[in-house]
């Protein structure tokens, strides 16, 4: 399997594969992850056209500096085979699989991607997978899904189908999906992959978006799917480490390094002991900052 690198996924913006102008415009926004969609935004009669459009667009007008995804149609859709043939040849950073419920589904898709990668001369295992969790079964099996295959780099919670499967009412406050968000987050942490939060649907409610994104950040999510370009900068701002967080992370790692050189078993900072999770969190913070273009090496503590 190919070596993985840390790639920012603060914001994921969908561009419909059925609309060229959407795909062209999406390149110019600040989203970290651009998801070319072959699924929900494409009418059944236009699946063939969208597949060719996304394929040609990515081959000839590939955006630079973004994490490129293709969301294929569902695991049991008759479109999936053709979608994978096109998507793998387009060689995106990632393929996003909707409505995942079991680890075996991910493994079967990963095996098929490997067959196509091998057939067309691509490095086997390089294309990553993000699994969308959109049902109660997906939530219940989130940990096995997150650990299903080395290609999996993130799980993403999707609230609309999830609430339907729960027989819940979708509300702006989102209490009905609070447990699911946390369950998926825990699964991601157990597997060491990124956790991507639900969309905030009201594009005219910036205050609500800020509150929901702050909650997601505080819970531990790494990013959030957005439904409109105007949400991108707000969401990015919450998931970019602050100067205070970066400086603290640098101090933690400096203390750890000094402790190692002095041969100390336990290291303290500001009177408290630094444990492994604190060190890991500090390293993640710095990796996120660097991925966001912040030069942490020249920062004065």
């Amino acid at each position, binding site marked *: 399997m190919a070596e993985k690198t840390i790639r920012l996924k603060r914001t994921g913006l969908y561009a419909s594969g059925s*609309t*060229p*102008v959407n795909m*062209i415009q999406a390149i110019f926004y600040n989203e970290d992850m651009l998801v070319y969609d072959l699924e929900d935004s494409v009418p059944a009669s236009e699946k*063939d*056209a969208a*597949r*060719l*459009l996304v*394929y*040609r*667009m*990515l*081959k*000839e*007008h*590939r955006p630079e500096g973004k994490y490129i995804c293709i969301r294929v149609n569902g695991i049991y859709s008759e479109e999936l085979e*053709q979608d994978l*043939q*096109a998507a*793998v*040849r*387009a*060689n995106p950073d990632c393929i996003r699989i909707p409505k995942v419920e079991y680890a075996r589904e991910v493994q079967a898709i990963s095996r098929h991607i490997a067959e196509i990668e091998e057939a*067309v*001369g*691509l490095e086997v295992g390089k294309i990553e997978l993000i699994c969308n969790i959109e049902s109660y079964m997906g939530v219940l099996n989130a940990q096995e899904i997150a650990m299903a295959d080395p290609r999996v780099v993130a799980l993403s919670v999707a609230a609309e189908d999830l609430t339907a499967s729960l027989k819940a009412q979708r509300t702006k406050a989102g209490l009905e999906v609070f447990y699911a968000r946390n369950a998926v987050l825990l699964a991601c942490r157990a597997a060491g992959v990124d956790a991507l939060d639900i969309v905030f649907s009201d594009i005219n409610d910036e205050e609500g978006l800020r509150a929901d994104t702050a909650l997601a950040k505080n819970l531990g999510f790494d990013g959030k799917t957005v439904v409109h370009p105007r949400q991108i900068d707000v969401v990015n701002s919450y998931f970019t480490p602050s100067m205070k967080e970066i400086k603290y992370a640098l101090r933690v790692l400096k203390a750890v390094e000094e402790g190692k050189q002095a041969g100390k078993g336990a290291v303290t900072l500001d009177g408290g002991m630094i444990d492994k999770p604190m060190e890991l969190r500090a390293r993640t913070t710095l990796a996120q900052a660097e991925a966001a273009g912040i030069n942490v090496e020249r920062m004065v503590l």
Partner: protein
Amino acid sequence: MEIKKAAVAGTMESSDCMVTIRPGDGTLDIQLDSDVKVMFGTSILETIQDTLASLGVTNADVEVRDRGALDCVIRARVECAVCRASGEAFDWTKEAAYHG
């Protein structure tokens, strides 16, 4: 690929094009209507011809109404229209992967 029936792909939205293809009378006839025909007409026609040639289409009436589509969009719309008109799925095995 043999064009067996009339088919359409694409839209008249900005940055898109609408491709209509019909069985020909023994030759390949291409009609192009584009807002940018004066500047890019030759290039667009070359893209259409190249795409049809790569699909082995030699007998068809093709009408392309362009609304400022990128080459890749024109190529994708022509490919889709040909597949629909021939009743055949796109042959992915002939496509090389993107290697950067």
